[in-house]
């Protein structure tokens, strides 16, 4: 058995996040340290209130830690200004949200290219074509989001996240608003992006079925990392969840 040394695309070091003042403070993240390895599809799981969304927001530079550090690559996000953070998001990070994920006034293709056009850079034509082809929406590119199904919209969102070749894609409950078939479709596509294109993906979910598409599942409870599972499948995940609950 060979050991591959994988670099971390993003990591949290003693990350702590609390809301509120002194005695009424709520600890959303309690000294979390985690490495999110490059080229891996990681699922962050946990019951609601476990701090999984907070961890994602902090890793993505959308929210600031109370103490500790987060790195994307070698960059310490805590040292960046708002503008630098915006630029970092634009170039190094991709997002997929639960809903309202596309700009309704732009076509599918324009939505996909949005991060590039905001940055004022030309898309890499071959890469764009590859992404669009993988998304499987070649014939719907000129449509507005309102003319696409929920699954199609979410695939456009994933394509948009992929197009700027980010170091890491953060997906926040990407299947939360989809029926199971469309959900499976999107998850399969995320998995494919990771395996075929080598894209690092971090996904927050509470659905064991969704987590089973990931390479690794990390479990959070009460703001701490309590468990991790390699090659998760739904049964294994459920098993862990039950143990956590016990």
């Amino acid at each position, binding site marked *: 058995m060979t050991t591959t040394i994988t670099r971390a695309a993003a990591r949290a070091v003693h990350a702590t996040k609390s809301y509120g003042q002194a005695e009424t403070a709520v600890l959303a993240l309690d000294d979390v340290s985690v490495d999110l390895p490059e080229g891996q599809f990681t699922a962050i799981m946990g019951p609601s209130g476990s701090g999984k*969304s907070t961890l994602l*927001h902090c890793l*993505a530079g*959308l*929210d600031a830690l109370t103490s500790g550090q987060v790195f994307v690559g070698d960059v310490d996000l805590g040292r960046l200004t*708002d*503008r630098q953070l*915006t*630029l970092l*998001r*634009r*170039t190094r990070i*991709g*997002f997929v*949200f639960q*809903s*309202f*994920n*596309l*700009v*309704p*006034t*732009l076509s599918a293709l*324009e939505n996909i290219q*949005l*991060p590039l*056009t*905001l*940055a*004022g850079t030309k898309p890499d034509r071959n890469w764009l074509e590859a992404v669009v082809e993988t998304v499987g929406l070649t014939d719907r590119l000129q449509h507005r989001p309102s003319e696409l199904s929920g699954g199609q919209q979410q695939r456009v969102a994933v394509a*948009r996240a992929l197009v*700027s070749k980010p170091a890491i894609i953060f997906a926040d409950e990407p299947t939360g608003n989809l029926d199971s078939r469309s959900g499976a479709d999107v998850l399969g596509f995320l998995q494919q992006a990771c395996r075929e294109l080598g894209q690092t993906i971090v996904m927050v979910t509470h659905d064991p079925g969704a987590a089973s598409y990931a390479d690794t599942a990390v479990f959070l409870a009460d703001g701490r990392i309590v468990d991790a599972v390699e090659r998760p499948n739904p049964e294994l995940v459920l098993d862990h969840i039950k143990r956590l609950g016990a």
Partner: protein
Amino acid sequence: MVTVAFSEMWSHKRRLAGSMIAVVLGVAFLAGTLLLGDTLKANFDKLFTTANGGTDVILRGSTQIGSDINQSRSGIDASLLGLARSTPGIADAVPYVQGFGQLVGSNGKRIGGNGPPTTAANWVGVPSLNPYRIVAGRAPRADNEVVINRGAAKKGKLHLGGTTTLLTPRPLRVTIVGISTFGTADGFGPSTFTAMTLHAATTYVTDDPSKVTEILIKAAPGVSAQRLIGELQPRLPTGVQAITGTDLANENISDINSGFLGFLRSALTGFAVIALLVAVFSIYNTFSILAAQRARTSALLRAIGATRRQVITVGLTEALAVGVFGSVAGWAAGIGIAAGLKGVFSGFGFALPAGGLVFRGSSAAIAVLAGITATLVAGVVPALRSSRVPPVAALRDQAAERRTVSVFRAAVGAAMTAGGVTALVLAAVRPGPVSLAAAGAVLALVGMVVFGPIAARPAVALLGAPIARTRGVTGTLARENSMRNPRRTAATAAALLIGVAVVAMFTVVAASLKASAAHGVDRALTADIVVDTPGFGGGVSSQRGRLDPAIGARLSTVDGVQVATGLDGGDALIGGKAHAVTVADPARVGQVLDLGVTSGALAAMTPASLAVSADAAKSNHWHVGSMAPIIYPDGAHGTVTVAAIYSHPDITGDYLLTAAGWARHTEQAVVSKILVKLRPGTDVAAAKDAITAATSSYGAPRVQDRAEYRSSATSSVNTFLGLIYVMLALAIVIALMGISNTLSLSIHERTRELGLLRAVGQTRAQARAMVRWESVLVAVFGTVGGVGLGALLGWSFVKAAGSTTLSVFSAPPAQLAAFVVVGAVAGTLAGVRPARRAARLSVLRAISAE
């Protein structure tokens, strides 16, 4: 339900603030104009009552020609004084001789003359018959002694014991022996009053010493004014009437109300209504958006059992509350507006007698009720719409605002616009009547507002194309955002469209007035130099100036002057109708004016002749040789014969009489302007200097060459236009605030979307730019529509009017284009606040927002 309404309002207080401000501003302007009108009216009432209050009965000429306050009325025989004194029941009767008399200030310039009268008269020694009181010095005893009112002394920096010149209009050297007040005030409003001895007055302010202007009568104790009239009336010759002081005051009050004050009040109210109308659009828009944003709450209320009526109640309660608070606050702000308006008027050179604001309950009620009604009207449709939200919408993700436009609306809007435009074009082409143009204007405006949402999408797409092309994705997003809800975009832009249309229309009419005046000077004036007095109510055909006719003779001796001749004017009844007439010397007028005589000859005019414009000849069915009855200002009847018909009435107006014929019927010889033709080859600048020097002792009248006269003839139009711009500025400000408010609300609605854009890498600067461009697009859309409509309206009105003063149509392209640029800049400003809000959004909060 009302509890629900108030909790809803409380949670939306920031959003309601925008519509509240629109109500406040709209009502403030209305309240301010009403307040100013009330104050002016009260002051005029007081002035006229003071002026005539002590006098029981006045004898005066019964012929009156012209209706304004400067009306000319014939004098009466001085011998009537004996008759009056011998009438039983009369305590005292004094003669009163009044005429034009303008003081020259210590700087050599004339005092006043901008509207309010400058009067000279004899000092009446009976205090109850004289509203003026001497506060320093004494009454005049010698012919060169005068008492001047304190206001005139202050304005002209004249002092007791000093000497100055009084223009009657002959220059008189006078010594100031007394300073008077009008009651306790500095004067009769801003007018000036110079009192002299009776002998001086009959010598200088009237040419006929046997006549007096009025006889002022004091009744004996216990005798009523009415009884005196009964005694006097049968003894009076025809042409003389007796009137009580109270009736005279009321007559003056009603004259000024139907004349100057009435016009001012209706004009001000007109502008206030425009501002309020614009505010209604802003308010309507805010309520529509709030109703849309509240759709889920409404649906929830319906789902748990609220009736449609109850949901409507919520919406209307909100409108009522905004209307009441906004209107009351607006009324209070109106006090400031009234003071501001007064300042604006004096800034433009119109002195208004508006000291001490006068509050009337009825005006306050009108302003507040108008504000509340406007707000409720604006709130009805959104309230109805929110009541139509089906209960099931509460369960859906997002209850969308209706964004499509019905075919019915499109058809009605298109039909109304087409009908309006057709009426406007018809009125212009035929030409007239103006009422057709007015009806077309209203129809076209309403039509455009109805049709707006249909036009908004393609129009904004077109206007936004260059922005989208040059500003990348930021521009594209701005363009798409303003296209996504055409109803909202159109309603926002409509407010601006109305305001800008009125501005553009006045601009076009003003430009046409100027072009017509310039055209008139070019074709009708052949004189090289014009001497006149700058004054109120300009226009090249106005003969309101007062100059000494002797100036003409004096100028004839100046080197290089070939001919110098005066024009005068007044009112006369010709063929039974009152007309403004110009008076000239027929032997000389042909050398200084090119009247374009088409038949007859000016040189053939005798004192019993009349020359008329082709238009006047046509409307009266006159030709050379036609005879018409005339009544002169002194009441004399006569007959005039048409001796010439001319086609260039630009400077003389439609009716021209001879100076010789006119002089017999006026009491004070004056000319309004003197036209000077130089000998060929004379240096105009040198001649102008010589003329200026020769006239300086006549109160330094204005001396202008052709080019200067041409531009000063148009400058009074600029003054009025400036005033109109100021009046309309508030409407434009309300419209721009409407844009700002709508955008802020839209941004609130798009919180998630904005968060998403920021999350995928839109910088704050890009977010700001996106919102600003959207604001610019809406503003430009409204401005372009307004300029287009306004130019059309102006064209139609100018053509339909078809008068001499509006003979040339002119649309200043640079100015109209500048409006669009200003609209774009104003749009940027309107977008500042919403743009800042958009950029300030916390990304995390935005994307996790419900």
